[in-house]
């Protein structure tokens, strides 16, 4: 990964953390002082390397794992902000990435009731529940949105 791609990747995460949303290529170009074309190329390189996921046929960021740039059933509250995560693994990934306490909200896949689990001091005080992984690891990237 070249230095521009590294800088772009860091900026994408900073932007997600500060705003709960991904930056557009124009936002990143302005912030880093590069042309939009250079940033779009970096976005594609990061997507090719599976560091981020773009919406199909676009340079709009869909995911910078664990963050989602679209609404999902996994909401994470941490450091006074709400974030969408891509899945249950990624919902816990937000406090892991931030090294911060968090409240994770979703609904039970069995009964539909609202579930809240806390991460506090790097620990999970309430451990009732199971997370179902439907897709074997080798196939995760066949359709990462479905995964």
């Amino acid at each position, binding site marked *: 990964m070249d230095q521009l791609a590294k800088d772009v990747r860091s900026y994408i995460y900073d932007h997600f953390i500060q705003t709960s949303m991904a930056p557009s290529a124009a936002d990143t170009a302005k912030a880093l002082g590069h042309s939009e074309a250079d940033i779009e190329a970096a976005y594609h390189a990061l997507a090719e390397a599976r560091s981020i996921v773009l919406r199909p046929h676009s340079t709009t960021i869909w995911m910078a794992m664990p963050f989602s740039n679209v609404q999902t059933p996994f909401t994470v509250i941490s450091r006074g902000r709400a974030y969408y995560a891509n899945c249950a693994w990624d919902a*816990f990934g937000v406090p892991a*990435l931030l090294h911060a306490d968090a409240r994770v909200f979703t609904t039970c896949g069995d009964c539909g009731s609202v579930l809240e689990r806390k991460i506090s001091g790097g620990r999970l005080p309430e451990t*009732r529940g*199971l997370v179902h992984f*439907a897709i*074997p690891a080798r196939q995760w990237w066949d359709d990462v949105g479905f995964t």
Partner: protein
Amino acid sequence: MPRGAALTLDQTWELAKLWYEDRLDPEWRRRTPAEATAAFALIGLTGEFWKLT
């Protein structure tokens, strides 16, 4: 849909830490399939379902 795998929340939290706690490192790079498979094994996630190689 295949049956898949079920993880406890403790296992999912361990997996999340393993996968994401270094993600903000500017020098972060994605694990190779062999590295990822080995990392899963460190927290007890073994077997055909978790193999990437």
